[in-house]
Every structure is written in structure tokens, then in C-alpha cells.
């Protein structure tokens, strides 16, 4: 299914979801690909987390609190299967586990997610200050586009992820806003929305810091999202940070925002890999 199809892909014009399913495996279209080979990490994480969210809705488990997705192997641009099991389903919380497999049954990715039934708790408020570090009150759509990874010759996920850059008071890149121009899944998914933005925290930090390690790639082995409330609107902001060490170990992270403030946090394990 991978191809160098022109960017005027028919599905792109209709706003069809990136992953479709007709009773069987998930079928990714060309825009699920990453800029190199295989599926884009944010697409994989969004699919795994979103599949668990769909299951949670069907079980009446409430809304997501967190999810973590392990990227165990490169995901092919090919039919994929999700298998979901329930680890616990109590009166308030539920925990799901999801395996993503290729058609041969090989495990590509594994995820977990926690869901909670909301319960009115009047008078509850954050007990510590929520950071207000940027001027996100503006409309992200008016900010400069961030175009890294968009290879005109190769249709990929970054063609359907609109990314905008907001600079801080000193003029340095601060917040990176993104929104999907096509839905990832054939149903609404908070986790899919968050993961498609959050998975870019490593790339956002490396590009804004200028700390690209020469001759090394920096894939993330996992990506986690913790969220304390549902974001408002389609834009998700990420303030990226990272720590990389000479041993090739590293982590990247980002506070997650909507236009009204903090909604959560993403963390990722990075592994520095020699190119070539």
C-alpha cells in the first residue's frame, strides 16, 4: 500500500479517516506513513490508544486518564489487527491492554490505557499553580507553519498534520501547535488526537534546540500521555523538552495544552541510533 502517490490522494480530498476498517483488520492509507519507512509513530500510537478508547466507550468506562504505547517493531503500511483485553473494570476505573499485530501475528506495538467515570466533585481545583508560560490566547492558525518532515516526493503523515510554531518572549521556539486535517480513525477519539500531537515532542525539541546529534536517528521506544481534562478545540500545543546523554539514552517530554491551558503531559523514551 505504500507508494509515492501524489498529494492529491482521493481520500485526502474527502476527509476520510487515515485508518479504516470493514469488519476485519485496520487498513492504513498512504498518509499513515512516516517520512522514512513504515507507519508514522504518532499514527501507530493514535491507532492503539484510539482502539482502546473505542472499546472503553462500548463498555461504558468513561473518559481516558492516561495511555502508554510501546513501539516494539516498525509498523508496515499494511493491514493491522488490534486485540484488546480488560485488565480491570471496577466501579470507577478500568484498565485496557491492546496488542497491535501484523497479519502474520507478529506484535508490532502494545498499549495500556486507564479510563474513569467522571463524578461531580464541586469545589475541586488544582492544588498547585498551573504554568502560564506562553501567549497561547492567539489563534494558532495565524502562527507560522512548521514544515519539517514534509517531503513533497513522498506522501506521509506530516502532510495531514498541520503544525504551527509559537515563539516565546525571547523569540525562541516555545510552543508547537498541531491539528489533524483528516481524522485518524472513523470515530472521535480524544487519545488519538493527543497522541498524534504528543508523539512529535522529540522532533519538536530537537528542531527548536538545534541539538540534532550528527549521524544519529532518535526514535522513541514508547510514548505516554497523561491527561487531566479533555482539550477544547482541535489544536493541541506541545512545549517540548528533552535530555539526551552520551550513552545513547534519553527522554523527551512535553506539557500538552489546548488554547485555554494545560491539559496533560507526554513522556517518551528515546534511543539514539547510528544512521546508515
Amino acid at each position, binding site marked *: 500500500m505504500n507508494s509515492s502517490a501524489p498529494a492529491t490522494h482521493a481520500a485526502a480530498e474527502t476527509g476520510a479517516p487515515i485508518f479504516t476498517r470493514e469488519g476485519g483488520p485496520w487498513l492504513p492509507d498512504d498518509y499513515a506513513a512516516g517520512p522514512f519507512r513504515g507507519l508514522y509513530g504518532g499514527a501507530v500510537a493514535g491507532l492503539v490508544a484510539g482502539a482502546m478508547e473505542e472499546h472503553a466507550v462500548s463498555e461504558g468506562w468513561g473518559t481516558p486518564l492516561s495511555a502508554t504505547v510501546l513501539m516494539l517493531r516498525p509498523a508496515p503500511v499494511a493491514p493491522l489487527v488490534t486485540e484488546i483485553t480488560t485488565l480491570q473494570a471496577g466501579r*470507577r476505573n478500568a484498565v485496557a491492554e491492546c496488542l497491535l499485530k501484523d497479519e502474520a501475528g507478529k506484535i508490532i506495538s502494545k498499549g495500556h490505557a486507564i479510563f*474513569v467515570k467522571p463524578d461531580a466533585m464541586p469545589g475541586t481545583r488544582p*492544588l*498547585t499553580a*498551573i504554568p502560564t508560560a506562553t501567549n497561547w490566547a492567539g489563534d494558532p492558525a495565524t502562527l507560522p507553519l512548521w514544515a519539517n518532515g514534509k517531503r513533497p516526493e513522498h506522501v506521509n503523515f506530516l502532510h495531514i498534520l498541520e503544525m504551527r510554531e509559537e515563539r516565546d518572549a525571547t523569540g525562541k521556539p516555545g510552543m508547537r501547535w498541531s491539528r489533524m486535517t483528516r481524522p485518524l480513525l472513523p470515530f472521535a477519539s480524544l487519545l488519538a488526537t493527543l497522541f498524534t500531537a504528543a508523539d512529535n515532542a522529540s522532533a519538536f525539541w530537537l528542531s527548536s534546540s538545534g541539538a540534532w546529534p550528527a549521524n544519529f536517528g532518535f526514535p522513541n*521506544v514508547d510514548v505516554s500521555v497523561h491527561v*487531566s481534562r479533555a482539550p477544547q478545540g482541535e489544536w493541541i500545543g506541545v512545549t517540548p523538552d528533552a535530555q539526551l*546523554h552520551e550513552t*545513547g539514552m534519553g527522554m523527551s517530554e512535553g506539557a500538552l495544552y489546548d488554547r485555554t491551558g494545560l491539559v496533560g503531559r507526554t513522556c517518551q523514551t528515546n534511543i539514539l541510533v547510528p544512521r546508515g
Partner: protein
Amino acid sequence: MKASTNATPVFRRDGETWAAQPESQGPFGGMHGGAVAALSVGEMEAMAAARGLGALVSANLYLLRPLPREGISSKVSAVREGGRVAVFENELWAGGKLQAKASACFQQPLSVEGLPGAPEKTVFEPETFVKWERPEFFKAANTNQGFLDLVDIRDTHHEDGTRAKWFRLKHPFHDVPTPFSNAMAVADVSTLFTVTDAGERPNAGGWPNADLALHLSRAPKGDWIGVAQRGSWHDDGRGMTESEIFDVHGRIGRSCQSVVLLPPL
């Protein structure tokens, strides 16, 4: 982070099962979440060290049911093995039920020129920080805080104004060093300190965390682990706690927890 004494480990094996010292007790019945992290992730950390699987760089723990202190069976399994990255899981069972599940990611090191190495300069001196005292409202409501008696806790503000707690274990969790899971264990207390630092209890009957995730960019050095926590809770009972994690040489990672506020009693 290693224990400051050679005292008896908190966890011991009784044949095929684990048992824990009373200090592992949590405030709500069952084992404290930090102790569950130390047991489940620590077992994988010890196994990986013995097998040369590399450094433990991240772990997730799902706290499914209250874990008793005795009669715990653990099931460690490989999710991915081979190459530079290994991923393992550990399930803790008791009474025929899955009580907790953890995953851990290990990474073999290499040498990347131009990136920082392990720091030598000491930035924090926790022994000079004041001992943390339980607030009165907290003392009255929690008389059985076994886990907090397991650690020397210091209270301070860092130079940037961040309020942090620093921890040093009085007893090791295992009979071999487990620095990552020691740090994970104390990170689990983050939500409690969002409450004690605020000086008031939330309008809730409790605030258990359903999970705990820890990402570290390098291995902790020394006995002390610093935790600077922040909580954001909302009036539908959902919340999260996140913490910056330090050793005496600087920042080394972050922990995150999903928090569920229980209805007022």
C-alpha cells in the same frame, strides 16, 4: 538511589511467593503504590542486571487492586528481547487475581560523541535540607503510614523556586541494588505531597493514583532522589500528578500519575 544502611530488604521470597515487611503498607489498605512499584519493577531490574540487558530507562505500573503484603506471585515475561532494546512485563497476582501489572524498557548503551556524560558536579546537598514534618491535618487522618517511615524525607525549595522533597531509603527493597525502581517508589508519593504542600485536603474522600510512569534520561547516582511535584485536578474527579525527578547532580527525568478523586466521605 541506594538504601543508606545494610538493613533487611523490604521484600523477601518465601518459596514461589513474595512477602513484604510492614513498612510497605499504604494508607488505604494493601501495599503502598510505591512499594508495589519497587517490587514489580525492581524484580525486573534485578533480573536485567543479572542478564546484562542494559540500563532501565522507563517503566509503567498499573495499580489494579490492593496488593496484600504476603502470598504474592510474580510472572515476568519478555515482550521484546534482542538488539539494543528489551521490554519486559511483570504481573503481580494474589488471591487468584491480577493485582498490578508493570512494564519496563531496557537499553544497551553506546557512545555518542558531543552529548553530555554522567555529571560529577554536586548541585544539591539534601542532608542540609530540613526534615519534612507531617502537617497536623495529615497526622490526624493517617496513623498507619508505613511507607513514609521507610524513607528519610527532606523539604526544600530549589533555586528556581520549585518546592521539592528529597528521599533516602532507610532499608533496601531488594537484596541487590535497584536504583531505578527505588526512584520510582518515592515518585509514587508525589500526589500526597501536592496535598501536604497545599496545606489543605481536597474536597474528596481520597486521591489514589491508578498508575505510575517514570522516564529517566540517565541512571540515578547516589542515595538521594529529589521529587518536585505538581498536581492538576478537576471538578469531575479526574486529575494528574507530574514530577520532575532529580539526583544530587541535577535533573534526571519525570514521573506521571493518573489520579482519581473519590467522593467525600
